């Protein structure tokens, strides 16, 4: 009985990868009780993935290295039981769904596991139907797996593991590459699973606004050690702790943290969701509200508008001029349906929208990678129909989502030289520029290291750096923060806003609305190949209904301010600081 109470039990586990100097896991002891929902958090490189590979025996059975300590999963010792047998008790969903899908059709793929266990055909059919229903893929049986969307692929990957009916489900960052709709689909699926049966779930994530209420427990790993474990709400109210672990805090909690620091509320009162933040602000406003904050704010806005107008007049050639742009696929489907757009030099624009809304297609037109079916795209006065991509590359840079699609050199330095050589630069000039960018991006110490020996965050930085050497006036960045942890996101965004301040026009494609709200000065929303909203973040995010229609969830703080409309006089606030401006900074002056 004692044995089965714990679904997962790690005792003093350490592991070192064969070629590594430092161990990746250090004396990890951890027990997960049966039927619990535990979230494993921590920065990139903290050992989360390594730990999950230990649980199903891939470490040490497939990956070599030095493993010490005991690991038992569903009553089995992972060293003594084959990975394939362990899979029946513990299902592990790995990071990239693309490489976990083995079958050509959804049905064939889902059946793969049970077929290996020689489950009879009738039983397989029953299980496949049941599992596909659970992950909300009913009716997808004969669909080709290659044609599924990102979210569907991820759910299929979960189905492929669930169909083996494990007692424990381990998911390694199942939502890192999904848009908000895809993410919520995954979390709803997990919810369903929790409700339906006694499944133990271990979820590896680096940020989780969504599951904070659902999880029973959070375990934080930091550099291979368990540094914190307890109730999620406790962790997320302690902003200092979050900063230390490199975990993204929940936006509304930042407002609460400020109140707490001023001594207005206790730690336990820090709000973690919108309704409680709303209640808190309404309760505090009469006590500590600032009398003139609205007038002050209006003044600021006027100033901003004026500045914008001046800017418009002084510029002659727009950085980007898109007129009546239509793009049609060979299949005849229109990806872009008549887009008109002007972006002035020095703007910071965010392109948002659901997957397949046309964001990337539009961005590729700017770079000349796609040519318009009809209409024109002018980049700094150059028509993309007349200039090819390599000619445009000195003016406009494009950083792609996955750095691994471009890295091919043996050192970081050589990787950066590639673009310069293509552009026809010679000796000294190349050296100087590479030097400059290496310093600027903080990659100096990796100069002669092989790019693939670095972490994902650094590789992302290399991709950015390899574009920056060309000193483009305009920079397009496609999902610069996918798969990065919070501190990685901070570094990347700091670099981007530094570039923006130096005068580079930035066009950023992102699913992370908090980032968009925080950094972008203008937001363009695409839906089905058309621009449906265009304006500053405050304006755009206040159109909650239109956004929800195009499957965008506005950032938490703008949702909060729309609930506080009556006190805010229709203003939309998107930064924690804006909310704080409503209150007296010194405290006790009461003027309402």
């Amino acid at each position, binding site marked *: 009985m004692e044995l089965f109470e714990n679904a997962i039990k790690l005792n003093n586990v350490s592991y070192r990868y064969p070629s590594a100097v430092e161990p990746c896991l250090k004396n990890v002891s951890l027990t997960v009780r049966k039927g619990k929902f535990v979230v494993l958090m921590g920065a990139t490189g903290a050992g989360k993935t390594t730990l999950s*590979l230990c649980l*199903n025996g*891939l470490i040490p059975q*497939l990956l070599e290295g030095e493993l010490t300590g005991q690991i038992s999963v569903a009553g089995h010792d992972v060293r003594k039981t*084959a*990975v*394939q*047998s362990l*899979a029946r008790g513990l299902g*592990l969903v*790995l*990071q*990239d769904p*693309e*490489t*976990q*899908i*083995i*079958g*050509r059709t959804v049905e*064939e793929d889902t*059946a*793969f*596991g*049970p*077929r*290996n*266990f*020689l*489950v*009879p*055909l009738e039983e*397989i059919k029953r299980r496949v139907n049941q599992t596909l229903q659970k992950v909300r893929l009913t009716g997808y049986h004969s669909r080709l*797996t*290659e044609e599924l969307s990102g979210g569907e692929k991820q759910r299929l990957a979960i189905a*492929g*593991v669930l169909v*083996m009916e494990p007692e424990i489900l381990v998911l390694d960052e199942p939502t890192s590459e999904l848009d908000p709709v895809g993410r919520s689909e995954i979390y709803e699926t997990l919810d369903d699973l929790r409700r339906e049966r006694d499944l133990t779930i271990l979820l590896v994530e680096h940020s989780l606004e969504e599951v904070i209420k659902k999880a029973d427990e959070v375990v934080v790993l930091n550099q291979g050690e368990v540094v914190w474990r307890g109730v999620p709400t406790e962790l997320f109210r302690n902003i200092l702790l979050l900063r230390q672990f490199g975990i993204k805090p929940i936006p509304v909690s930042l407002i609460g943290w400020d109140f707490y620091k001023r001594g207005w509320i206790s730690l336990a009162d820090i709000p973690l969701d919108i309704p409680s933040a709303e209640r808190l602000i309404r309760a505090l406003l009469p006590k500590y509200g600032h009398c003139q904050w609205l007038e002050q704010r209006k003044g600021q806005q006027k100033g901003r508008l004026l500045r914008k107008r001046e800017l418009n007049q002084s510029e002659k050639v727009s950085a980007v001029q898109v007129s009546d742009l239509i793009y049609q696929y060979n299949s005849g489907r229109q990806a872009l349906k008549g887009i008109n757009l002007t972006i002035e030099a020095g703007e910071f624009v965010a392109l948002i929208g659901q997957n397949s809304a046309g964001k990337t297609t539009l961005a*590729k037109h700017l*770079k000349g*990678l796609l040519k318009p079916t009809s209409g024109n795209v002018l980049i700094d006065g150059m028509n993309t129909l007349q200039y090819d*991509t*390599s000619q445009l*590359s000195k003016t406009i*840079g*494009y950083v*792609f989502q*996955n750095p*691994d*699609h*471009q*890295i*091919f050199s043996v050192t970081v330095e050589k990787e950066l030289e*590639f*673009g310069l050589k*293509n*552009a026809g630069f010679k000796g000294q000039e190349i050296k100087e520029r590479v030097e400059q960018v290496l310093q600027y991006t903080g990659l100096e110490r990796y100069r002669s290291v092989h790019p*693939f020996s670095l972490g994902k965050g650094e590789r992302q930085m290399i991709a950015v750096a*390899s574009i920056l050497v*060309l000193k483009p006036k305009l920079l397009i960045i496609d999902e610069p923060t996918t798969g990065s942890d919070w501190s990685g996101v901070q570094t990347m965004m700091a670099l981007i806003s530094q570039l923006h301040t130096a005068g580079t026009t930035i066009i950023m494609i992102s699913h992370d609305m908090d980032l968009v709200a925080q950094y972008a000065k203008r937001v363009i929303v695409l839906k089905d190949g058309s621009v449906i909203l265009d304006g500053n973040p405050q304006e755009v995010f206040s159109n909650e209904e239109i956004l929800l229609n195009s499957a965008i969830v506005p950032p938490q703080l703008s949702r909060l301010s729309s609930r506080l409309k009556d006190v805010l006089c229709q203003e939309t606030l998107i930064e924690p600081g804006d909310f704080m401006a409503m209150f007296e900074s010194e405290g006790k002056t009461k003027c309402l």
Partner: protein
Amino acid sequence: MFIEYSPENTLLHRLDVRTKMLGFLGIVIFSFLFQDPRYQLLSMTFTGLLAFWIKIPLRKIGGMLTPLIPIILSIILITGFTFAPERFVQASSQAILFYALPGDRLGVTGGGFLMGTTFMLRLFSMMIASSVLTLTTSMDDFTQFFQKMKVPVEASMMLTTAIRFIPTLDKKRRLILEAQKARGAKFNDKGIIGPIRSYLPIMIPMFINSILMANSLSMAMLNRGYGLSQTWTSLREIAFAPRDYWAIFIIVLSLTLAIFVRFRLHLGIL
């Protein structure tokens, strides 16, 4: 080149994969039995009728044939010149039509030309027959066939995985190409080494990505119990229906007939 499976419900679609393979083998044997182009024409007409029946996209077949025309013409010419009269049995084939060079050298035999025509028609019927086969038989059926033929699970697994990953790798290739183009890579260098060198920025990330993918694929497969036992559950048990027995009967009968005609009656040789 490859005509993909299109799910429909003709008799050919419903036939068991083993029957179809036997039929395909029958056509192959038939066309290698006879040297006379008239017999080849017969087998081509037959496969053509099958193709017409299941409505193969004619344009696709045309697209497959046009690039072959120069090769076909040169085959006819070469056989015409190189097949010496001694190689033929019948007098009409031994006849020399004309000499290409003065002094009765490099004679062109009638049989040679006929042989060339046979080669051409043989090629056509093979192509049509294999198109008919792939168009009416799903990938799943083929793996079933391998399994029934006692080909190890690994082999059919390899085949299906390879086919599954073709679109994925193609997508990767496009992404890599775009990423390098965005850095100003040009792909039209001159010389012998030029083109190879300019493709390195594509090939290296392609290899690295494939290896990474293969690595995680192997983890995912172990993770789902692959290799636990030597076999696995078949998703669909294929079984012969009465129509299969009829079809097999007809195939065997026609083959026997063909062999009789060829070896007893000595017909169809040049």
